[in-house]
């Protein structure tokens, strides 16, 4: 059955779908579609989907990469935690190189002697805490609603088994408020994008359900199609959006019906409600402070809350490099190639902004896949 994955990557079917999109997209109209999720950004770049689309249809990248939107101040706080001599900080791999305010990172902290370890699952961090009773093991939790339920499970396990040398530094963020923030940007703000539709994230939706996005068609007259990650999923979803736009409708549609339901994963939602509560506000790199957009541990879990055990210093507002276009890019208003720093001061080896740090960030994806296309276009010109 898993040859189905291959079928969703069928090149021939992709070309035929692209042809249909080209035929149905009206030449006198423009279609700007935002793909929210970093996984989509990566897939669109890897499979060169933009190249298959007609010129009137532009994909705009959204802020759906949790590594990209983690602000420097939170990285600094993690570094401070890691530098404590009795702490072992566990983190996902991508997070290691995110720059803090002083251009350091967890990677440089590790070289300076901090005990920083890469894990693939929060369960690994908990297991490490059990294996190292003399250490305080702190898990650096990042991610949207796809990644949050595993952290919840592990916290409940820690409490149930009385594992007291384990803590979570919680930076989980929420998808619908981030999308709303983009639409709520005032009309005169130059970073406000002009969007016609949204490609909704598939894996987040397996947890929160496609109904979680119903308010966008309702409140913003914005069509939303929850899309899978394979190239055919993305192309089919784009076609569904084009059709909605053409008939002037704004609905929530679920293209990823093989994995997503309207109500989502109730078990996961309940576990998250048991362990987390919503913060009043939280800073997003490139987007500023967004209300009710992130999670923290509930008071009952204070004993496992790294922020309560070693409160981070008050966050200074981040001052991005003046030429860094991440804010516009994260809102879908600019493309990586529009940024003066792209490929010059800002490269995957020397990232300046968030969009270059993670392999799913728009700039990193453009670096890996887009330069070949643009070199090609220059040749032909």
């Amino acid at each position, binding site marked *: 059955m898993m040859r189905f994955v291959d079928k969703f*990557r069928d*090149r021939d079917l*992709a070309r035929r779908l692209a042809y249909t999109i080209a035929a149905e997209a009206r030449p006198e109209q423009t279609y700007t579609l935002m793909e929210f999720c970093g996984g989509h950004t990566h897939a669109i770049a*890897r*499979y*060169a989907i933009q*190249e298959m689309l007609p010129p009137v249809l532009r994909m705009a990248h959204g802020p759906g990469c949790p590594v990209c939107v983690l602000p420097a101040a939170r990285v600094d706080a993690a570094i401070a935690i890691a530098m404590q001599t009795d702490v072992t900080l566990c983190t996902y*791999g991508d997070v290691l*190189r995110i720059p803090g305010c002083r251009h350091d990172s967890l*990677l440089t902290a590790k070289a300076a002697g901090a005990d920083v*370890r*890469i*894990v*693939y*699952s929060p369960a*690994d961090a908990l297991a490490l805490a059990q294996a190292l009773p003399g250490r305080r093991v702190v898990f650096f939790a990042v991610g949207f609603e796809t990644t949050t339920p595993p952290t919840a499970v592990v916290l409940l396990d820690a409490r149930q088994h009385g594992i007291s040398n384990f803590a979570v530094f919680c930076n989980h963020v929420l998808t619908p408020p981030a999308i709303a923030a983009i639409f709520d940007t005032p009309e005169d703000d130059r970073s406000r994008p002009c969007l016609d539709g949204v490609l909704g994230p598939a894996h987040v939706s397996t947890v929160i359900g496609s109904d979680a996005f119903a308010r966008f068609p309702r409140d913003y007259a914005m069509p939303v199609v929850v899309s899978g990650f394979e*190239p055919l999923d993305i192309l089919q979803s784009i076609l569904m959006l084009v059709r909605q736009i053409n008939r002037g409708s704004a609905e929530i549609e679920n293209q990823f019906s093989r994995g997503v339901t309207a109500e989502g994963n109730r078990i996961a939602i309940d576990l998250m409600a048991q362990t987390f509560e919503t913060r009043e506000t939280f800073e997003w790199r490139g987007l500023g402070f967004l209300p009710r957009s992130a999670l923290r541990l509930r008071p009952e879990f204070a004993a496992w809350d790294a922020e309560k055990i070693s409160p981070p210093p008050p966050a200074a507002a981040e001052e991005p490099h003046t030429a860094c276009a991440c804010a516009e890019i994260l809102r879908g208003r600019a493309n990586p190639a529009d940024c003066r720093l792209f490929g010059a001061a800002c490269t*995957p*080896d020397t990232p300046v902004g968030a969009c270059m740090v993670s*392999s799913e960030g728009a700039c990193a994806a453009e*670096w*890996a*896949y887009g*330069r*070949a*296309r643009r*070199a*090609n276009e220059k040749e032909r010109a």
Partner: protein
Amino acid sequence: MSRFSGPAIDWENGRIDLSHGSGGRAMAQLIDALFVATFDNDFLRQGNDQAEFAVEAGRMVMTTDSHVISPLFFPGGDIGSLAVHGTVNDIAMAGATPVALSCGFILEEGLPLTDLRRIVLSMARASREAGVPIVTGDTKVVERGKGDGVFINTAGIGRVPPDVHVGGDRARPGHAILVNGTLGDHSIAVLSQRESLGFETSLLSDSAALHGLVARMVAAVSEIACLRDPTRGGLATTLNELATQSGVGMSISEDAIPLKPEVRAACELLGLDPLYTANEGKLIAICPSERADDLLAAMRGHPLGRDAAIIGRVVEDPTHLVVMETQFGGRRILDWLTGIQLPRIC
């Protein structure tokens, strides 16, 4: 059996301690009973600090490699066999015939002798199968905590046949690019042993001595321009090195790159790119395009080249880019490896 008297070595329960590195009797006994006895050749039996031999006039190559892999033992090999294969292969990548190897051990206090013996036996077997003797060596011991069990350095020398001219700067536009088999096997086999990653696979490391394959290739196609083994940084990084050295670009096809389904699956699971993972027992060959089919046939006729494939060609490009046509029809620039992949695979 050791020529040196003293308490018998406890191979089952004994450990390396600082006396094994001090130059005294315990060290001499260990060297004699383990290294000299196992590697078993006249050079070592002479008991000198050097190995003396005569060579024919001609071009020689010399290379060295240090091995710091963790864990020490993995499916399909260990640090010992890796150390032998790695240096034999570096010689072979010059198109040269390996003549002799040296090996230096840095042993951590506390290393179980049973592990050390297993490693040395493995090296001896690899050396014997390759037909390349280990003629001289060195042993040092560092305190507990200052080494990761064992680090091994091997150096080697080889003789280049007169009509062979292989070098990283000899790739030319129009040349064909070939590999001798599937990529990524070694890395995934090693990573499957890292408990923190928690996955299993039946993959074995493909670490192997390639000089026999290379000899066959060179005999069939003397015009081979480049040979290199894509170890750290993987295929993509190695192609970038060659492109820069030769002042050319490269165009490869994702469809043509041999990959086992398990490697693909494990990479997807771990978020790794099989084009950037370290390989062992693999080589890249570049030759004039009109000889590519002959070279491919020669490779496929050898056990270590059964899955050989032509994966692309060298092109004119002043920017020295390595560009890949993806399975889906897009194009992707394969840059040098950025930052780190996972540490200590070779």
